[in-house]
């Protein structure tokens, strides 16, 4: 073996990275098309359905649209205005896209492939770029925080008031929802006992109880937080078109804007992957996929198909929500993050920790079957109590006037402080 040739694991990793990067970029382009079709369907009009094969009359339902869009945007001028901070302005889209692609180093995109002795792969090959990385969840968490840097850099470097305000808002939103996101992750990590996302899927497959059923409160908190992290409606304040033009990417055009938009779309795809992997059982489906090791190509394919179908369903859900919900106001957004989601997240974590801690005692006391039932019933009880409490303690969603009445924990002097009223947001 030549010493300069990369080793087999490196080649395998490179192949996986190539598949993943190519697949993700293509998926992002075509999901934009799906989203536009969806928008057209919701608004009762025809979406993009013209672009097919050039110089022919073949339309192919508009499947050529993403290619045409991509080509056109690359052919446009890459314009940098004079008033911006050039280095940061160029770095921002690169940082945000590189980070949102690199997240997938720790995210499995299937179960695994059976051994291929002909290629020297003697054991099962996991469909994950870095199978040896045992801090997968932390890696995902860390890189999703780097998105904040991209947004803040872009907003600040633009030297534009819309961009600046959009960047501030956006970073405040991403920071605020990072905490409920982390709390949702913690519950799952605790129940699965691992930070590796493939182990988390295996844990759900082996018990047959998806974490969405075992931790309903954590699921809801994580779902809401990941909508906010992906800056999708109803949380799309960073680029509220009617208020801030384009938000942090107001001054961006051409390919740099494309990088931002692709990164934004990838955040949604990442969120869908995480929701499915951590809460909806990953590749597991009762009676279809089994839960043991992968022995045949058929099993590998079925698991991959199940995972992809679930992810696609979650993405469609994201798109439906976009056309069903109005945007939150900024104070409502912050209230939801700090005063609703954070307490609910802590309640979920404490519940899960307590149930997991006393599960052995429970099993010896009432037997395996009943212990399983109780371990699911308690989180559901907490879920309903938390839901009702949150509904009673926070103002009604239809009340759109600024809130002047103090909340349960607000000190009176906070409201009466004349200084506060002078502050402009």
């Amino acid at each position, binding site marked *: 073996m030549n010493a300069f040739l990369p080793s087999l694991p*490196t080649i395998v990793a490179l192949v996986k990275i190539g598949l993943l990067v190519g697949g993700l970029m293509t998926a992002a382009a075509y999901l934009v098309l799906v989203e536009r079709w969806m928008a057209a369907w919701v608004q009762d009009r025809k979406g993009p359905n013209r672009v097919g094969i050039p110089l022919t009359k073949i339309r192919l339902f508009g499947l050529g649209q993403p290619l045409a869009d991509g080509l056109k945007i690359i052919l446009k001028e890459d*314009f940098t205005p004079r008033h911006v901070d050039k280095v940061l302005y160029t770095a921002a889209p690169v940082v945000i*896209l590189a980070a949102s692609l690199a997240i997938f180093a720790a995210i499995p995109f299937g179960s695994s492939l059976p051994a291929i002795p002909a290629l020297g792969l003697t054991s099962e090959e996991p469909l994950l770029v*870095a199978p040896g990385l045992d801090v997968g969840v932390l890696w995902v968490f860390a890189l999703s925080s780097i998105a904040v840097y991209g947004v803040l850099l872009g907003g600040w470097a633009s030297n*534009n008031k819309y961009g600046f305000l959009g960047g501030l808002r956006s970073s405040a939103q991403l920071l605020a929802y990072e905490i409920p996101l982390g709390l949702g992750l913690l519950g799952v*990590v605790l129940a699965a006992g691992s930070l590796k996302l493939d182990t988390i899927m295996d844990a759900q497959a082996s018990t047959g109880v998806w974490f969405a059923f075992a931790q309903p409160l954590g699921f809801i908190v994580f779902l809401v937080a990941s909508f906010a992290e992906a800056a999708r409606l109803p949380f799309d304040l960073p680029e509220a078109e009617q208020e801030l033009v384009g938000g942090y990417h107001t001054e961006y055009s051409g*390919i740099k804007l494309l990088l931002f938009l692709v990164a934004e779309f990838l955040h949604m795809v990442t969120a869908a992957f995480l929701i499915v992997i951590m809460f909806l059982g990953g590749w597991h489906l009762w009676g279809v996929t089994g839960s043991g090791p992968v022995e045949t190509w058929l099993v590998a394919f079925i698991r991959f198909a199940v995972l992809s179908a679930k992810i696609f369903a979650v993405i469609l859900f994201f798109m439906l929500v976009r056309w069903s919900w109005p945007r939150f106001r900024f104070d409502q957004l912050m209230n939801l993050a700090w005063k609703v989601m954070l307490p609910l997240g802590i309640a979920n974590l404490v519940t899960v920790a307590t149930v997991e801690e006393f599960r052995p005692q429970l099993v010896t006391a009432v037997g395996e079957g009943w212990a399983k039932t109780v371990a699911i019933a308690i989180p559901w009880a907490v879920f309903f109590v938390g839901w009702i409490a949150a509904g009673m303690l926070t103002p009604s969603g239809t009340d759109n006037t600024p809130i002047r009445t103090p909340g349960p924990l607000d000190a009176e002097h906070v409201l009466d402080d004349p200084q506060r009223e002078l*502050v402009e947001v």
Partner: protein
Amino acid sequence: MDAILPVLLFVAIAAAVSVGLLVAANLIGPRRSGAVKEMPYESGMDPVHDTRRRFDVRFHLVAITFLVFDVELLFLYPWAVASRSAAGIDAAVQGGLVSSRGLVYGAAMAFIAMVVVGFAYDWRKGVFRWR
């Protein structure tokens, strides 16, 4: 190294893809400039005063609060992972490093309780209050 190499490769390739797209568009795209095009975009108006002005201190408060809670969350990760894994708390109890599981559980709950106290303090101080 074997575990981290694919991650480094991925980061390098992701950065290369992003930079490559930028460079490609720079090479292919046209280049035209003009005084009006160079102006900051303010919905068609001439820009008034500088962008770098004072802004609301509450963004700073959110950042500080985030830092506190996020670091506290990170402290909980080792406990969450060790709770049920093979080389976790059970092994530590058997090896005599910790006297009992209950102690670790109690300590974690006490830590979460302290986080909750800090949270209630922030709430009462009006940190989460936006107008």
